[in-house]
């Protein structure tokens, strides 16, 4: 403490003392620290939320790019791509063709329309499909039933994945996703086993976005699964044109987020594989989602296990679900080019009807 200094002013008689305080007291210091503490405590949780918001926004942008790619594709080809380029016949003489659930995916076909032409050429996407389609057309009924899918054929001949299939395309990955970049060499679903032909899918780069392949259930009054826009060939009867989307482009879903490893809906049906942009290998769940009773957004309460074990076996309660790591819902691209975040609390009637392209039923506000 300095001494109190008295100054004399020349013209006045009165003398005023002035006190000078050059330092903070301890109490003031504590107050400042408390205020800084409050500000930081406000900021920290906000930073975490802002990071997730930023990732969600990037995911929104990815979906927007894919939807624009589909629109570019439609401009050139007068139709949308098929969800899966697989066998066109659902049944031949009462039997299912072997290649019904196996084929190139719509994301692979969109590569040239998303500035990824070199990858499209490297993987020989268009050529592979043309050759396969021609061979299928030329085959007789027995040959069509027995003919293997694109990936099985390639794997049988080369014992590896298609060249370029391991290229990670950043537009096909959601930044919040926890899937690995490529299907790992060995993997097992929780208590369920492995992919039907595990080795065949290993090495392909994963994707977090799938096509919306229609819906099924009491909300749809018997309309089958073929009323989506990006279904497999046999489901949609070939490529869908915009004129066939009679519900309107803004009332129909096109792309959905689905970054999980899907499983079949009973323990005996085909088990899951990693979703890959190049297509589905014996598994249409790798490239498309649907709207139905078992396909709630972000999976049901047992999401971390996919299966519920009741003693008799593993009962999967989910099927063809949209799934994201964003809390409370998932991002969807609609056919009109808009991208919306749908809540997991959306009613099944509205969600399923959004999947359908020609159901003609009203939607609730969502």
């Amino acid at each position: 403490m300095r001494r109190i200094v008295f100054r004399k002013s020349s013209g006045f008689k009165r003398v005023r003392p002035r006190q000078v305080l050059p330092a903070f007291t301890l109490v003031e210091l504590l107050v400042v620290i408390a205020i800084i503490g409050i500000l930081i405590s406000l900021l920290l949780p906000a930073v975490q939320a802002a990071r997730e918001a930023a990732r969600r926004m990037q995911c929104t942008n990815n979906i927007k790019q894919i939807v624009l790619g589909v629109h570019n594709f439609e401009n050139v080809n007068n139709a949308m791509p098929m969800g899966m380029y697989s066998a066109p016949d659902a049944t031949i003489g009462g039997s299912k063709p072997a290649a019904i659930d196996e084929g190139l995916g719509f994301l692979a076909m969109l590569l040239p329309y998303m500035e990824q032409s070199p990858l499209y050429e490297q993987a020989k996407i268009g050529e592979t499909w043309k050759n396969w389609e021609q061979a299928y057309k030329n085959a007789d009924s027995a040959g069509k039933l027995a003919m293997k899918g694109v990936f099985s054929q390639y794997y049988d001949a080369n014992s590896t994945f298609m060249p370029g299939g391991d290229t990670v395309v950043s537009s096909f990955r959601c930044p919040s996703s926890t899937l690995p970049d490529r299907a790992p060499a060995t993997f097992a679903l929780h208590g369920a086993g492995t992919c039907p032909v595990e080795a065949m899918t290993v090495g392909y780069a994963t994707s977090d976005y799938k096509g919306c392949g229609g819906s099924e259930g009491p909300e749809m009054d018997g309309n089958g699964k073929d009323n989506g826009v990006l279904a497999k060939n046999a489901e949609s009867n070939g490529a869908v044109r915009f004129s066939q989307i009679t519900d309107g482009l803004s009332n129909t879903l096109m792309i959905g987020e689905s970054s999980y490893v899907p499983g079949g809906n009973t323990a005996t049906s085909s088990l899951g594989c990693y979703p890959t942009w190049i297509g589905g290998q014996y598994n249409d769940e790798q490239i498309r989602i649907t709207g139905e009773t078992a396909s709630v957004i972000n999976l049901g309460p047992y999401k971390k296990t996919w299966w519920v074990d009741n003693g008799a076996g593993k009962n999967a309660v989910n099927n063809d679900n949209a799934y994201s790591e964003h809390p409370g819902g998932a991002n969807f691209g609609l056919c009109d080019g808009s991208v919306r975040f749908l809540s997991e609390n959306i009613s099944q009637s509205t969600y399923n009807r959004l999947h359908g392209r020609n159901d003609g039923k009203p939607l609730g506000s969502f």
Partner: protein
Amino acid sequence: MTKIKTIVPLLLLAGWLPMTGCGDSHPFPLAQAEGTVLCDGNPVAFATVYFVPVEEGKSAIVGKSGQATTKQDGTFRISTYQPGDGAVIARHTVRVGTSLSTDPSCPAELSPMKVVQTVDVIKGKNLFTINVPKRNSRKKPVIEEN
């Protein structure tokens, strides 16, 4: 001393603020929903049960669907957001999906695509008996394709 008295509430505030925003992320109240699935009086074992909230007003945001699988004695307990948390308080349509049971006493007509019953889940404990129809013996069982 007066300054210290002002600091104490400030410090309490600093401790409380980081905890704001960490409450329930879903606004839908839940209630326990349990019951038994019966077919002709026999329990339907190892089947999947779905409780789907019905959209009644203008809003399509009605709450997530609940799921459960039945035990050997046909009993089930619905979960929605977390295992064992119950069902959203609302009117639900009930669907019963495929069963892993091979019990021949009542071959039930099971499909997640068919509404078996409509129930109201109310506040408190709910106990339901879900009766599923017997399958027409002449009809071949439909294998659902996923």
